[in-house]
Every structure is written in C-alpha cells, then in structure tokens.
C-alpha cells in the first residue's frame, strides 16, 4: 500500500511521504494535496485505535476562520485494511513554518516583546476561542507551536488525534497531570493549558528545554518539593514582564494563574493584582519512607504511590500520623488521615483502596492513584480503550481498572476533593461506571462502559474488528461481511456478541437495552432469537441500512426457536416456511413481520385462548359425566320402574280387552 495515494475528505494522502515533526505521541503524518481544484497543502495524521482521538472535541471545534492561529482539521476519514482494520485519518493544513523548538534543543532566547505578542497572546486567543466552546487544547508546547521564518504570531499545532495531553512531556504538565499515565490525563481545564503555556514561554525565553536531563519522576519530585516556579525556572534570568507572567502561569494553585483576558491585555492587566503562589508547607524533619526522605505531604504521596506495595504496608504506620501531626504540623490533614484510617479499619477493605484514599488526602491536587498508576477520573475512558483495544490487550491492566471501578475508588477520590470543581459529576460518573461494570446482561458491563466513554472507538468484536466499524451502518456492513463466511462469523454462535451488543447499546444511547438483555437470555432461546431480530430490525430501519441477506440468514437461524412462540401448528408451519424467504430479502423488518406480525400474533393468541378454554370446558364436561354415573343409575331405576309399570299395565289392559272381545 505504501506510496499509493488514497483520498480522504477531498485530499489525496500519500502514505509514501511521511512528514516528521508535525505530530507527537508516535503517530505518523503524511503529506496530502487537494484531490480536485485548489486548496492549502495539508498533512494527514493516522490515528490509533487504542489511543482514540478526541471525537467529542473534534465535533465542537470552531471553524478555521475563527481561530487563525490553530490547526483545525480540514476533514477526516477512514482508510486502510489490515489486522487492525481501517484507521482514522485527520487532515490539517500544513503549519506556516517549523516548530518553535524541538525537544531537548537549545536555541537563542526570544525577546520579551516577541514572546508576549507573538506567542503568549496568540496562544491565549486560541485557548479563549476553545474555552468558549468548553474545549481545552492540551498540546501547548514549543514543538507544537509553528511559525514561518518571517516571524509573526505562532500557530498552535494539533492536539486532537490522541487522548488529551497524551503527547505532552511531563515538564509541560502540572505535577498532578505529569504523574498520570499518558492516556489517562482526561480533558483537564484551561488552567492546565495555561500552565503548559507558562512552561512553553519559559522554554522560549531561556532557549532551553525545561528540566532537560532529568527523568520525569525526578522532575515531578523537584517541582513538588520546591514548587513549580522554582523547580522549572531555577536560576534562569527572565525579563521582568515575562517573569511576572510566569509567576502566575506556573503557580501550583490554579486559582493564581492569570485569566486568558489578562494575558490578552498583558502587560496592562498584570498590574491589576499581584500574582503569587503559596509556599509549599515543609516539615521540620523529613519522613523516611522506605529510605526516601520527604519533607512535604505531596512528595510523600508521590513517593508512596510510586512504590505501591511499600506504601500499602506503610499506610498504617503510627509514624506517619506522628510525622503529619508533629513534623508537618498540619492538624487538618492529620485528622483527615486519621479519619480515613479509622473508617477503613472498620471493614476488611484491601490496602489498595486505603492507600488510594490516603494519597488523595495527602495530595489535594493529585491524580487518582491505583496500584502505582495514576489517572484523572475523566481519563478512564481512554485508559480502558488502551487496555482493551491495544493490539495485544493487557489483561493485568484490564483487571486493575476493573478492580478500581469496583472498589469505587473514583467516588472516594471525588469525596476527598469536593472543593475542586466538577467533583460531583466525577462522583456520579464513578457510581455509574461501577453499576455498568457490574451489569452482566448483554449490551451492558465493562464492554458497554468502554464504548460509552470512547465514542470514536471501533467495535472490538472479533467478528468485525478488522473492519474498524465506528458507526452503526459500518457495523451492519461489517457484520454482513462476517456473516457471508462459511460458517457465518467463523463459527461464532451469534452476531450479537458482548462487544457488538455493547457497541450498539452505547451508540443507541440505551434505546435498545431491554431488547439486548432479552437477546442475551440463554435460558429462553425463543425470546432471545426474537429479540435479536428486533435489535437488527431497529438498527436497519433507523440507519436506513442496505439489505443484509447473509446476516439475516444467520439471525434467522438463531431466531428459529422463536417459531415455537406461535401457538398454532398451522401458524408455526407458515412461519417456518416463510422464514427463509424473508431472510433472503436481507430486510430485518420483513423477517420480524414474519416472526412477530402483531395482527397475526394477536389472532394466534386469541385462538389459542379459545382453544384452551374449549379444552378446559371439554375436560370439565368429561369429569361431570363421570361424576354423574350414580345419578344415571338412579334415573335408570326410576325410568325403568315407570316403563315396567306402563308395559305391565298395557298388557293387563290388552288382556281385559281380549277377554272382553272373545
């Protein structure tokens, strides 16, 4: 396939011409040109299934003319066929120039004016435009800002082909975000983008990549211990206006970061109020956690989270409470930790949840930690996709996430951070996720949760995985292809397996949940078969799908037991005869009409009820006849006696007449 152009959204993409430096996260970008007429030179980003693009964000992005300094997708489409099926390609216009700075690179520092006017303000305008639509960018970093050699305002690169913040280096994320797994950062807030802008400005102002030479963990710990501003800026000398701006942007408290309006008016707005950050509370003596000396609560949480098993052991240590109370002198935190320990000791809760809650209390800005891995709760969807949709799915990761959902860690996390915005929604999400993950009926469960949280994820059923179906029409088409095989679906018992059912349930937003549950009821195959037909009939009707004769034949075979739901033998024979013909049309509504025509069904029911009543009446009459045998004997005796008297009397009369006449 390499080198052979294909068309996506009116552009010809050349997979033989990969372009470097346009997109991160290990994605590939290819050169593209307009297929017809004129248009800007473009590039196409090939997405990955297991790191799904931000579909909900893509649908809400502003038109390019509203955000001239942002690479907005020109279009998207699916292409490719292989083990993983077609992949989504997102088209962008080529940026005006090269990236401002590449990772690890050293460059000449930008001037203060250039930095404010051509970097800070254009990026703030882009963020403001996105914020109006409730969108974050989550890809603000020097190698994702582009401008031509002639200078001028920068253009912000793409950040929608991967989960939010996936490509962001740890240094460009707040410490809490940097702790998270790349796919589990969640959408975040505009404050996260502002922090990234601050680090970006710092990099461009100093001409050095921040925290270069330090691994992510060390960089995070440095910022936790010293605060982000001190940790990132170090001893670098910065222009006064930039320094003021960075003091706000790199504040560890999001509330201290300047607003987008302030940046747009910078430096005019900067003097309106002082921007400063609270100092990190330090203990009078270090806490020795497994040989690691920590002086503040957030660093302790980070250390314990990174050495999970030792953390689980250390969590009940009296030394911890003593240190919090006496060395850190944080009475409120000490009491809260004590409460958590007391509450958890009542039940036989496992150490994972206890440590999870404790870490949430120790680090109020921190992520949700579970078995050494961190995430922001709204990043759960992308993490599930990574665990389930990867070419080699990780069973261990799946189990960890399932355990975390089951333990209600998300709700507990939200409960510890009720002062943070959106935590009530997170709590609700955690409860819903647990309820969904626990559900065992077809169309629900972990699979449903996976598709609900990842609207762009293709259906992962083995039946259609290679087709990469992300929509219901595509799913129907893929199932039709799968059903064309011999045996249909490669011998799968039903086209409505757990993944297909969950995908349909998520796409139809609960409209067919009852039918899906009935279709999965193995104890009632006749109802299950009928429900399966109903699901596909509704799907085909709503999606105005083409005929699917192969799938219909497969479904008809599954629905064969449903013939038994007809009461009348004649009706059953009629349905049995009509079923193959209806299946051959490929129209599920015809199939359903044959199997479950309401008028015929009602007539069948009424006739059956009448037949049963007649049968019952006949039984009752038979019983009555048998019970009346003594009555018949008495009647026979009465009638027989009368008849004998009548006959005798007649003979007597006859004799009298005969004798009288002779």
């Amino acid at each position, binding site marked *: 396939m390499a080198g052979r152009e294909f068309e996506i959204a009116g552009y010809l993409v050349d997979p033989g011409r990969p372009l470097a430096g346009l997109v991160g996260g290990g994605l590939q970008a290819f050169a593209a040109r307009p297929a017809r007429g004129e248009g800007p030179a473009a590039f196409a980003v090939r997405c990955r299934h297991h790191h799904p693009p931000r579909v909900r964000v893509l649908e809400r992005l502003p038109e390019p003319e509203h955000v001239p300094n942002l690479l907005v997708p020109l279009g998207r489409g699916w292409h490719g066929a292989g083990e993983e099926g077609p992949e989504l390609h997102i088209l962008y216009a080529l940026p005006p120039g090269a990236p401002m700075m590449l990772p690890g690179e050293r460059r000449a520092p930008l001037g203060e004016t250039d930095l404010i006017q051509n970097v800070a303000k254009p990026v703030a305008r882009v963020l403001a435009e996105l914020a109006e639509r409730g969108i974050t960018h989550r890809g603000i970093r020097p190698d994702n800002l582009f401008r031509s050699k002639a200078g001028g305002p920068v253009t912000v690169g793409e950040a929608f082909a991967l989960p939010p913040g996936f490509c962001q280096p740890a240094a460009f994320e707040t410490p809490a975000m940097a702790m998270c797994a790349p796919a589990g950062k969640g959408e975040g807030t505009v404050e996260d983008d502002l922090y990234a802008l601050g680090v970006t400005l710092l990099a461009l102002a100093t001409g050095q990549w921040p925290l270069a030479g330090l691994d992510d963990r060390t960089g995070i710990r440095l910022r936790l211990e010293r605060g982000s501003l001190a940790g990132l800026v170090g001893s670098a000398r910065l222009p006064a206006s930039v320094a003021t701006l960075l003091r706000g942007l790199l504040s560890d408290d999001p509330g201290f970061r300047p607003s987008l309006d302030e940046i747009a008016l910078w430096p005019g707005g900067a003097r309106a109020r002082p921007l400063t950050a609270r100092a990190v509370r330090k203990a009078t003596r270090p806490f020795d956690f497994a040989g690691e000396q920590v002086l503040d609560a957030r660093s302790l949480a980070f250390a314990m989270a990174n050495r999970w098993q030792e953390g689980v052991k250390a969590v009940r240590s009296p030394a911890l409470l003593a240190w919090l109370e006496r060395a850190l002198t944080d009475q409120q935190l000490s009491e809260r930790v004590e409460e958590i320990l007391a509450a958890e000791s009542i039940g036989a809760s496992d150490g994972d949840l206890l440590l999870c809650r404790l870490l949430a209390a120790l680090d109020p800005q921190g992520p949700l930690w579970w078995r050494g891995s961190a995430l922001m709760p709204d990043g759960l969807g992308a993490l599930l996709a990574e665990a389930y949709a990867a070419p080699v799915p990780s069973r261990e990761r799946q189990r960890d996430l399932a355990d975390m959902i089951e333990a209600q860690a998300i709700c507990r996390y939200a409960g510890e951070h009720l002062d943070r915005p959106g935590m009530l929604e997170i709590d609700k999400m955690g409860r819903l996720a647990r309820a969904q993950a626990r559900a065992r009926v077809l169309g629900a469960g972990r699979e449903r949760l996976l598709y609900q949280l990842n609207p762009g994820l293709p259906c992962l059923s083995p039946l259609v995985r290679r087709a990469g179906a992300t929509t219901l029409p595509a799913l129907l088409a893929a199932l039709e292809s799968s059903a064309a095989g011999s045996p249909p679906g490669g011998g799968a018992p039903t086209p409505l397996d757990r993944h297909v059912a969950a995908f349909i349930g998520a796409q139809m937003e609960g409209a067919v949940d009852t039918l899906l549950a009935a279709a999965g009821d193995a104890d009632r195959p006749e109802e299950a078969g009928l429900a399966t037909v109903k699901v596909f009939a509704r799907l085909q009707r709503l999606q105005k799908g083409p005929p699917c004769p192969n799938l219909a034949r497969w479904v008809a075979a599954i629905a064969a037991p449903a013939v038994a739901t007809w*009461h*009348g*033998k*004649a009706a059953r024979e009629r349905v049995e005869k009509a079923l193959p013909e209806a299946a051959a049309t490929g129209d599920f509504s015809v199939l359903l009409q044959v199997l479950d025509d309401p008028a015929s069904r009602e007539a069948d029911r009424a006739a*059956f*009820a009448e*037949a*049963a*009543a*007649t*049968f*019952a009446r*006949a*039984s*009752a*009459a*038979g019983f009555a*006849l*048998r019970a*009346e*045998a003594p009555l*018949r*004997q008495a*009647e*026979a*005796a009465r*009638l*027989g*006696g*009368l*008849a*004998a*008297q009548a*006959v*005798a*009397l007649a*003979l*007597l009369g*006859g*004799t*009298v007449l005969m*004798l009288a006449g002779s």
Partner: protein
Amino acid sequence: MAKAAKTAAGQGPARASRKGRWAFWAFGLGTGIALGVALPTGLLLLVGLLPTAAAFASDTHPDKTTARPVLYLNLAGLLPALKTLWLGGHDLAALASLLGDPWTLVLAYGAAAFGFALARTIPYAVLLVLEARAAATMKQLADRQEALREAWGDAVVEEANRLVARAAAAAEKKAGGG
C-alpha cells in the same frame, strides 16, 4: 334437640311402615269382603295373587316399582280363570275344577314372574341406553380435545389445566368467602 332430630330422622321409615301396614290391612279387608261376598272369586284371587302378595311384602321401594308390574301381570294372568269362573256358574265346584287345572296357576304365576322380570330388566335396559349416550358424549369430547391438542400441541393442555386450576381456586375462594 337431639331427640327432635332423632324423631325427624325416624319419620320417613315410620311413614313407610304405616303405609305398608295400611296396604296390608286393605288387602286383607278386600280379600275378606271378596271371600264373604263372592267366595269362589275370593278364593281364586287369594290363591292366584299369592306372587303379588309376596312381591308387595318384599318390595321395599316406596313406589313399589317391582310389586306393581307383578300385580298388573299377575292379574292379567288370572283374568282368563276369573272369566271362566264367572261364566261357569261361580261355585266352588267350578273353582275346584279351575284350580285342578295346572294351567290356571301356571298362567297366573308365570305372568307374575314375567312382571317381576320386566320390573327387574327394564331399568337395566334404560341404564344401558343412558350410559351409551354418556359414553358417546365423552368420546365426542375426547375427540375434540385430541383435535385441539393436534392443532395447538401440549401447550393447550397446560393452558387448559391452568384455567381449570384457576377456576377451581376462584370457586374455592368464593366458597371460603361465602
């Protein structure tokens, strides 16, 4: 109270007993009158109607369903002898001649026996007819049920049983409530 119940319960048989006694005395009185007024006829009746007397004495049915046919046919069997007696002078000699003829009593007693046989066989014949009609009806019902089972399968039997059970439960509930 118990005494009253006992008295009420004893009224039926007592009435039957009184009626039997009355019949006995009426029969004796009739025979006495017959013997007094028309001795040969009375003697002929006395001898000839012995099966009837026996039948009335042994028939416990309130309507005397056996004794009556015996009476009618016994009388019919005795009528030729009565006619001969009355037309032959109506004296004891004629009576002796008649009673000396074995056919006189054979005819009277044979007719009484026929009457007895009629009274005993006709009810059985009627019972046979009634049972045959009931059997035919039951066969019709069974055929109908079989046809229903053929058309609707065993489910119709289950549903019918359910209906019967439901009706029985409702009747039981109604009876309990009443």
